[in-house]
């Protein structure tokens, strides 16, 4: 009887914990899965096509890196009840505040254009014109936010996050060699040819796609909008850890698909890979195309919100997804302005889209280091964080990660500006 009572108690305890998690889950999962946006999927596709499975171990390492950076935003948001933009204004004054805000909006707007490029390219595989895709995306994203409830928006986005897992069944369809996968996943090594400039550029691209400036701003604002408190920090951390796990899973399986079927092909982007896969297996090509569209959509949803939240926080507008359009007009106006203007750019004939894609990486490099440095400084501020400030272990880990990210992303940005820089 005692055993049964014990089991029942444990079951109730587990069920209660699961229910609490399901209520508090969201920001971490969404930001991490949206991290695999259109640019991210393109990076993974090219990684697989160029280096087969040889960089799988590196992708696995990026999971903890993403977790440690994003986990700090959970604590900062839950303790200060401020988004990252407002926290920077409050702690460091107007100079750094305005710099971060305008850099964020510029980076987000340019990244939003790249998401539209990805989505229109993906849908063009199904012969859907770019103008139809753009209008449909704007309508869908508009409908998602005007529900007037953060909870509804979050659950709709979760459905799209689930769709991003399409790469998992796609990888199972092609039966890759399990022993090869295990070796390449858990034994760190360089691909044949060693550490070349091209490989270094690819590693930097993978890091660049794992940590983006908008993620820091988005998750902190989402934590505030969800009204998470200090007692919810543990659940926020678990949510972020699960999200980091899934972001690695998606990247991992995406590389498996292209590494198995397209290794050695000259692949430049995900849409091109989807077209090539169509000729090998129409289901795989379709999966990749839908996955690319979904990735672009998730990225667009989060990026446009990150900017609107940041502007709302600083200008003091009502800026919650729990507000109706009438209650927070400027918040929604700004959201739609970013969305529609980015969509229009993609539709302009002869718009310099490749230049924009390259420019994003350079502009992101001007924002990412400052956002990360502010994060570390704020998390070390006793008066801001109290008992939730960084421990010695967290500081050592986070400062190491931040320094590595800053150095590599700077090299990535500079080598985008000057392609011969590393040669």
């Amino acid at each position, binding site marked *: 009887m005692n055993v049964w009572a014990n089991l029942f108690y444990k079951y109730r305890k587990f069920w209660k914990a699961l229910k609490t998690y399901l209520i508090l889950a969201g920001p971490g999962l969404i930001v991490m899965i949206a991290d695999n946006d259109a640019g991210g999927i393109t990076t993974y596709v090219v990684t697989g096509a160029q280096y087969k499975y040889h960089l799988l171990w590196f992708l696995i390492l990026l999971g903890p890196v993403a977790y440690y950076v994003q986990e700090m935003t959970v604590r900062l948001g839950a303790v200060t009840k401020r988004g990252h933009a407002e926290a920077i*204004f409050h702690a460091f004054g*107007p100079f750094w*505040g305005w*710099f971060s805000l305008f850099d964020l909006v510029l980076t987000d707007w340019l990244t939003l254009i790249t998401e539209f490029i990805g989505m229109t390219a993906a849908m063009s595989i199904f012969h859907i014109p770019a103008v139809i895709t753009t209008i449909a995306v704007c309508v869908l994203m508009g409908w998602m936010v005007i529900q007037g409830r953060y909870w509804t928006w979050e659950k709709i986005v979760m459905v799209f996050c689930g769709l991003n897992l399409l790469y998992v069944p796609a990888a199972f369809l092609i039966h890759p060699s399990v022993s090869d996968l295990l070796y390449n996943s858990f034994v760190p090594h360089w691909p044949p040819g060693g550490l070349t400039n091209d490989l270094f550029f690819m590693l930097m691209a993978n890091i660049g796609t794992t940590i983006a400036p908008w993620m820091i701003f988005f998750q902190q604002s989402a934590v505030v909008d969800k009204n998470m408190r200090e007692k919810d920090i543990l659940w926020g951390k678990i949510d972020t850890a699960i999200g980091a796990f899934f972001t690695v899973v998606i990247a991992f399986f995406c590389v498996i698909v292209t590494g198995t079927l397209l290794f050695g092909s000259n692949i430049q982007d995900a849409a091109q890979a989807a077209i090539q896969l169509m000729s090998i297996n129409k289901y795989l090509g379709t999966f990749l195309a839908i996955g690319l569209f979904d990735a672009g959509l998730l990225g667009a949803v989060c990026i446009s919100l990150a900017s609107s939240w940041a502007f709302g926080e600083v200008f003091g507008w009502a800026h919650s997804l729990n507000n109706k359009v009438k209650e927070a007009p400027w918040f929604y106006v700004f959201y739609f302005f970013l969305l529609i203007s980015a969509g229009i750019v993609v539709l302009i004939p002869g718009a310099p889209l490749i230049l924009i894609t390259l420019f994003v990486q350079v502009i992101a490099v*001007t924002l990412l*280091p400052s956002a990360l440095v502010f994060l570390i400084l704020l998390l070390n501020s006793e008066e*801001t964080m109290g008992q939730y400030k960084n421990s010695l272990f967290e500081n050592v880990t986070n400062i190491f990660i931040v320094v590595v990210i800053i150095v590599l992303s700077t090299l990535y940005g500079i080598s985008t*500006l000057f392609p011969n820089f590393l040669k």
Partner: protein
Amino acid sequence: MPHTFLGMIADGFKSLVNAVKEINKKYDKPHIKMSKPVIFALLTLRIYLIVLVLLLFYKFYTLLVTHK
């Protein structure tokens, strides 16, 4: 004046400037304790950004020169 289109733009611009002034006033003083590591980090960040901006200008200059 306020009834014309230009007047409305002028009013909008004025209210934006006022909002920016208010924000600057509200966040006038940094609330973080300016310890040595914080000052060092902010100074390094400024130098880093200046170097990046100079590199961007240099890139545009070389682009302009090669296009001529």
